[in-house]
């Protein structure tokens, strides 16, 4: 039972893998466009956990590199969420729905 009582790098990696797959599944499967954006934030958070975990456990030559990358990831996530939400609002104005399976005027 040492996997339960000794926390190592692998624990954080598996945690971030679960978060990543949950976010990816939310992006693929949910109909509401805002929930798709929430799943996208989950994916980015999973990657951030990975970066910080590696920076802690394997970053003995270059400490804090993972932290700086995560600061950039959070900045990019904020910019991308703003633009994506602007697009979603425009779609809602145009089609009166945000369910992604009902927005299909591009296919014949």
């Amino acid at each position, binding site marked *: 039972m040492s996997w339960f009582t000794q926390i190592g790098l692998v624990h954080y*990696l598996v945690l971030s893998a679960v*978060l990543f797959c949950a976010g990816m599944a939310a992006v*693929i499967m949910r109909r509401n466009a805002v929930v798709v954006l929430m799943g996208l934030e989950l994916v980015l958070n999973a990657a951030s956990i990975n970066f*910080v975990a590696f920076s802690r456990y394997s970053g003995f030559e270059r400490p804090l590199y993972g932290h700086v990358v995560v600061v950039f990831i959070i900045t990019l996530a904020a910019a991308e969420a703003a633009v994506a*939400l602007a697009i979603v609002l425009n779609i809602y104005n145009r089609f009166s729905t945000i369910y992604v399976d009902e927005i299909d005027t591009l296919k014949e």
Partner: protein
Amino acid sequence: MTGETWNVIIFWSLAAMTVVPAVALLIVRDVIRCSMLLLATLSGVAGLFVLLGADFVGFVQILVYIGGILVLLMFGVMLTNRDPVLLRRVRERGLVAPALIAGGVMLAPLVYLMLAIQWKQPPGPLPEPQYSARGIGTLLMTDFILPFEVISVLLLAALIGAAFVARMGSERA
């Protein structure tokens, strides 16, 4: 209780607080409840950052992710929500089994890979985590100066772009 025991207890509590709302985000139908679940997940991630010794990143996560991005998403929910408040179903119709199966199929190779690879471990014990704000600031000005400048240009572009796209087409016919 030793520090190592506290480490284990806090890790498993934060892991549960992070993973359980994330999986529930797949299944819950009401989008407002989904945003609350995302709040719980982001808070758990911030706690995990602090547990890993990344105090500055954890606080930036709370300030920017929860205080900025989540609030932005909730504004989006508010402006686009047409469902009635009282819902008869809690779970999205017909999505529980496919959610878990799809998530599990994506998860299995990842977990196998993470358990099978021999990760590079430091020789000796891990260093004590220190306050990281000064080190991050120094790195941003020395090793990461180019991404720092580029991201400021990107933020300007995103700001202008979002304001332009979201102007609601009041002058369109």
